[in-house]
């Protein structure tokens, strides 16, 4: 029986790679629900039976039920460029040449998008007793050059629209994280924030943690998250 079981979406890969680089073993297990046998993740309010069957009795359950919804909204320049005032840090720069959107409305739209993931988190909470930790999504990669160099499936759209300003992506990530913090508090799930050493002075992902793609952390990032989980 693993000591630590991580269940969730693609950000789990950074942790899995980190564990493998550390020698692997049975102490940690990773269940990536992107795999087809776990779809759909939710069935009538409960986790898919294949997921449910693998939950077992780990000492620590870890949720990475999280999408990239903030990136869907804001990774690329929108044809109607927008910006907003981040409620938790209203003094941050706002591009007044872009369309100012109500933060509350953006938050509402993000909430609509993350609702299925929060339902999965709630189902996970209901399925296991004891400590359940949810891992915050990694902050954005600030470098547009890095994203352009590793565009993956976004190659054509990035060429067409360009990568949006890093600060806008950061603000959307903060809104996104705020929704998870609130949900965790309501569900009795511990919220594990990004390891501070993985953030630069502006709060974005440090270069050594960038995966060669537009949105994910790499194995080093996973290593730091794992260290926090196992501490």
């Amino acid at each position, binding site marked *: 029986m693993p000591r630590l079981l991580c269940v969730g979406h693609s950000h789990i890969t950074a942790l899995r790679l980190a564990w493998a680089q550390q020698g692997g073993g049975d102490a940690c297990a990773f269940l990536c629900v992107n795999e087809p046998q776990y779809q759909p993740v939710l069935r009538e309010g409960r986790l898919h039976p294949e997921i449910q069957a693998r939950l077992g009795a780990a000492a620590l359950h870890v949720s990475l039920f999280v999408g990239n919804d903030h990136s869907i909204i804001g990774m690329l320049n929108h044809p109607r460029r927008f910006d907003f005032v981040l409620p938790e840090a209203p003094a941050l720069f706002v591009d007044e040449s872009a*369309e100012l959107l109500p933060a509350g409305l953006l938050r509402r739209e993000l909430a609509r998008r993350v609702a299925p993931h929060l339902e999965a988190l709630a189902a996970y909470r209901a399925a296991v007793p004891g400590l359940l930790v949810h891992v915050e999504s990694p902050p954005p990669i600030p470098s547009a050059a890095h994203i352009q160099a590793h565009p993956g*499936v976004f190659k054509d*759209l990035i060429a067409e629209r360009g990568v949006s300003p890093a600060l806008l992506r950061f603000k959307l990530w903060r809104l996104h994280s705020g929704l998870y913090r609130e949900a965790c508090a309501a569900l009795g799930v511990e919220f594990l924030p990004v390891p501070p050493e993985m953030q630069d002075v502006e709060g974005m992902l440090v270069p050594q943690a960038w995966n060669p793609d537009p949105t994910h952390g790499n194995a080093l990032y996973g290593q730091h998250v794992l260290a926090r989980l196992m501490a």
Partner: protein
Amino acid sequence: MTHPYKSLPDSAFWSRDVAGVAPEAVNPAMAAQIRIGPGDAVATAGSCFAQHIGGMLQAIGFHHLVTEPAHPLFTPEQAREYGYGLFSARYGNIYTARQLLQLLRRAYGEFHPAEDCWGEGGTWIDPFRPRIQPGGFASRRELELDRARHLAAVRRMVEELDVLVFTLGLTEAWLSREDGAVFTLCPGVAGGAFDPSRHVFHNFSEAEVVADMTACIAALRQRNPKARVILTVSPVPLAATARADMHVLVASFQAKSMLVAAAAKLAQTLPSVAYFPAYEIIMSRAFDAGSYFGPDRRSVTGAGVAHVMRVFAAAFAGLDAPPPPPAPAAPDQAGMSQIEALMQAHCDEAALDPG
């Protein structure tokens, strides 16, 4: 034996043009002095009934000018909740002529109300559109930036419109003692705190409404000389009166009567200003078994709005039968579904084939 009534048209006779026609066919709009062409930009503002006017304009194929539209990221329901698309700009309900006048002055930097922001419990309320943002603004900076953008949208509306349809709603209002700023709602109702040393009740007289509306039209034409104006009066009764000595029903009829009289006077005296009898159309059903009011005896039914729409289309565009409403446009998601699909592929790739 002859007398002046002998030569009058049917419209002059209750028996012929009210009692003598089907209730839903009553058409009290006389030959309009204003026409609305297919390309005319029609702006809307006013009390809550005016929210129907924008939708009505779109339904009959007119160009409803909206200078502060919702961003396509949001669903239509989200946009409405945040006051987008209800009127030409995101000013919410404008109940009095003085409020409209002050909005125009604020938009052009001619009036800066002293009490311009209400902060409470970490949120900020705009006293001049207190319900525009559910839960209020999250910071004073957000409110100020949003207001600047909003007032810019009001300026664009003023300068781009061909026709303004303004619906007068109330005569009662709460004002700042300091500078006369009209609050949309009494302080304390939807933000702020009522303070009798700072806030005072005022019931506008017919003369004041006429003067304020005349000033509004002058301000509008100063920026846009071609502007035509259609005035209506909201049939929606007062939700409450501030006058303890008067029943709300009486206060409501007094207010509406005065607004109708003021609007009629403006239409008779100012060029390119018309009065549209939406109020009378809705009230016409008070004389038969039907009603254009909902169960709360206050909100107007869809059938009432449709009747108003038919008469409006006939009066201002010569349309006997309004065209069928256009199919609701799919929200312009600006490629959002494509991005969603790509993000799914991107995350699957990262999860299943980390390389």
